[in-house]
């Protein structure tokens, strides 16, 4: 009699919690099962077939992502049948995909090629050599490269289940199944909010970023990821700046922003259009990187922080003295932290004595 919360996976006893699938239980135990259409944020669909396992008593192989663990279940994930299935399945995928891994992984790493490499010994099939028409879309951020799409529908389901936007859909049938907006319109004209979640969840780089910096960058796996907090608003989403250390004559450059994996940060790997795509200000020539003071000649000149703060304080004090504190108003930025915003209202109310203070994220 087996314990009510245990399953047997390849002779290893694992505990599971009520409601967990076979995949959940094995992942928590650190066993790796291949997946392509799975994302912990989405309802499992079992469509990519890569996580099929043998469950004792079941005639057919079962998708681990969709099959609930039940007490005493006996599961084999690496026997001959399962491995043969994985090999032929992946070889089929590759027969309809960009064959050369280095060509395929010019941007994001390709999960399909990674699985194929891990598994090895794949039958070599004749490529189907389907013709793909490049699809132009005038939006500046996201492009779809259909020759890399494996129709796992992660992007479609993310857009629906996480963002609630429903800008894209599976379209067509059979081998011609692919991703599209309604009637193939531009993402600009659709309900799309350009959050780029589709780019993030795509396992094969079919949904790709087309910002000039990232398009011209080295493959993602050669970039250094620096975890930081998005400063576009107060939500505090975690993001990974992808830095090319060799770029900009060795000074390094942020060439892309990616999300931390789902489940590893409070924002669960989600970002908005600003966090994901509006990073090119970092090295932009127009960006202010030093205070500027207007000189007697009427032009702005670089100055030290001490000089700039002194001039600002003097100006504010002069207005307050001449016209009263309520002649002043303080507006701070949503890109400041909460602590900074707190200090701004302190400055306004306690130092100058006016309630004319506002912050653009307050409404």
């Amino acid at each position, binding site marked *: 009699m087996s314990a009510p919360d245990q399953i047997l996976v390849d002779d290893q006893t694992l505990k599971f919690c009520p409601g967990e699938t076979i995949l959940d239980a094995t992942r928590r135990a650190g066993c790796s099962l291949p997946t392509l259409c799975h994302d912990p944020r989405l309802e499992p669909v079992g469509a990519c077939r890569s996580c099929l396992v043998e469950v004792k008593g079941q005639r057919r192989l079962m998708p681990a992502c969709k099959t609930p663990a039940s007490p005493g279940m006996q599961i084999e994930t690496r026997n001959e049948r399962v491995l043969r299935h994985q090999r032929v399945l992946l070889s*089929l995928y590759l027969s309809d995909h960009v064959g050369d891994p280095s060509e395929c992984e010019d941007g994001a790493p390709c999960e399909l090629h990674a699985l194929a490499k891990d598994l090895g010994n794949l039958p070599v099939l*004749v490529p189907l050599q389907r013709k793909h028409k490049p699809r132009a879309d005038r939006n500046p951020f996201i492009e779809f490269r259909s020759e890399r799409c494996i129709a796992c529908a992660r992007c479609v389901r993310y857009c*629906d289940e996480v963002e609630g936007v429903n800008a894209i859909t599976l379209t067509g049938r*059979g*081998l011609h*199944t692919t991703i*599209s907006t309604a*009637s193939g319109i531009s993402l600009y004209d659709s*309900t799309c909010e350009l959050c780029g979640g589709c780019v993030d969840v795509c396992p094969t780089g079919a949904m790709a970023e087309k910002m000039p910096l990232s398009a011209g960058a080295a493959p993602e796996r050669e970039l250094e990821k620096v975890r930081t907090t998005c400063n576009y608003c107060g939500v505090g989403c975690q993001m990974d700046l992808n830095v090319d250390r060799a770029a900009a004559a060795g000074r390094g450059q942020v060439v892309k922003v990616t999300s931390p994996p789902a489940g590893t940060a409070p924002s669960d790997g989600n970002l908005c259009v600003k966090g994901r795509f509006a990073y090119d200000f970092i090295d932009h020539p127009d960006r202010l990187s030093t205070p500027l003071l207007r000189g007697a000649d009427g032009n702005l000149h670089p100055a030290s922080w001490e000089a700039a703060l002194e001039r600002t304080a003097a100006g504010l004090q002069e207005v307050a003295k001449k016209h009263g504190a309520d002649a002043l108003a303080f507006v701070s930025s949503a890109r400041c932290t909460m602590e900074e915003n707190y200090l701004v209202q302190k400055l306004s109310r306690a130092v100058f004595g006016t309630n004319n203070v506002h912050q653009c994220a307050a409404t």
Partner: protein
Amino acid sequence: MYTRSDSPAMTHDKKTRAHVPELLQQLGQPSAAGVDAVARHTGVPAADVFGVESFYSLLDQRDLKTRVCTGLSCRLAGAEDLLKACDKARLETAPTSCIAACDRPPAMLRERRVVCEVTTGDVLESQGSFEKLYSAAGSDWRGSIWPATADEGESLLNLAAAPNWSAAGYAKALEIGPEAVIQALEEAGLQGRGGAGFPAHIKWSAVRGEAEPVKYIVLNGDEAEPGTFKDREIMLRRPDLVLDGLAIAAHAVGAGEVWLYLRGEFEIPREIMERAVAAAEEEERYGDLAFHFHSGHGAYICGEETALLESLEGRRGMPRHKPPFPTAQGLWGKPTLIHNVETIALVPTILLRGAEFFRQAGKTQPGTKLYCLSGHVARPGVYEMPLGVSLDELVEAAGGYIGELKAFSPGGASSGFLPASERARPLDFQALAEVDSMLGSAGVVVLNEGVNMAWAAAEQLEFFERESCGQCAPCRIGTAYQRASLERFREDGDAQALEHVDNIAWEMIEGSICGLGQTASLPLTSALRHFPEDFVANSSGGAPQ
């Protein structure tokens, strides 16, 4: 056409989505404005509406071409010559999957109207006008049946008899009660006639046993397995049996609503069924039982029960994972009893004539079976014969073979091919499974010695590739890969082209979500197994003489 003011979007419930395909159909040819209008009207996102439109071949026709059926039986009857004749007559055409007219080939389709037994002469005379072709052929779509005259003795469905609107079967069900109805099905040994041969009473008991008070009955009239046209004939000739059977099922499992899902090309059967329903509702024959119709829109996969449910809910017809089975979570998540038309039509007779009579009517398994016979036989048509007759017995009733029997497909394209040496094997669920084939929907296609099996297999592979829903990779890519392999062999005569066929067929069986992918390689693997002489390197593999 639709304005915001009459939009139910604000109050839309899940059933509103079911209207998406129908609204797209009413708008005619696909357009972005049409998609937006349907989205506004139903509250379903425009992208989803477009996803639905692009899935169904009858909704996605961006031209008004005439379609020529390229199913195996129509090809054997000269569909290719017809395509050429259309070219000559400047009638713009495109091929289409089987349209359930295999007994009267070759058939043509425009939008949803079918014309049967078209000759190249008809086409040339039509001078490029489908309307002319259609009016010349008339709308009577009934084919030949056997027994050809009403026969109360042996025949259970008795297709030749006039409809009987007395609802005696339903009255009997009310009299004996739900438990006894289900028991009668069990004693009769009724197996589902849609293809799997699953014992019907198990499904009925399962749905009846569900605690959920809302339950549905769904009639699977999406008859699209190439070589099959029996449900068409039942609905054209005996709508009474179908309605009675549905009402009995609803009474037995405790369902208040019945959905009739008919393939889109079944406009005439639908009209007949609608008239029958209207008359029944008029006289309140089945109490307050509600009947609804839903047309398919050109997708073979929707004959698979869970794809049918998705389609009925107004989505892309992609099969669901089982379990949960529809008996527990079916239409809109409620317990649902889904049956093929023939299974349902047999129910009243079982109640009226008794389980024992039904059992005795079969030869190797209980009941009679409607065999759809087409291809190289003298009189193609629907034959009601004891379940388990052999091919020879069946063809004898049909006036004999045309030419020398070489191969046959016992249950539609999904059953693959069997050699002539199996001519005495009982055509039933068990005996055919023993030779890795199946009775399926009993669409029996007979091929004579003039047919090259590489050619015949190629037709079937093209069909499965075209009809794969695309959800899972083994089927989506596998069907295309098998087709491409055979094509390379037929072009170059290089047997190397077929080296991965068995491996991929194995994966399609193991890895595909539903039966389409699991059986899609069978035409090729069975042809390779039984007719290796047609796959010798450098054999021509041309069309039959």
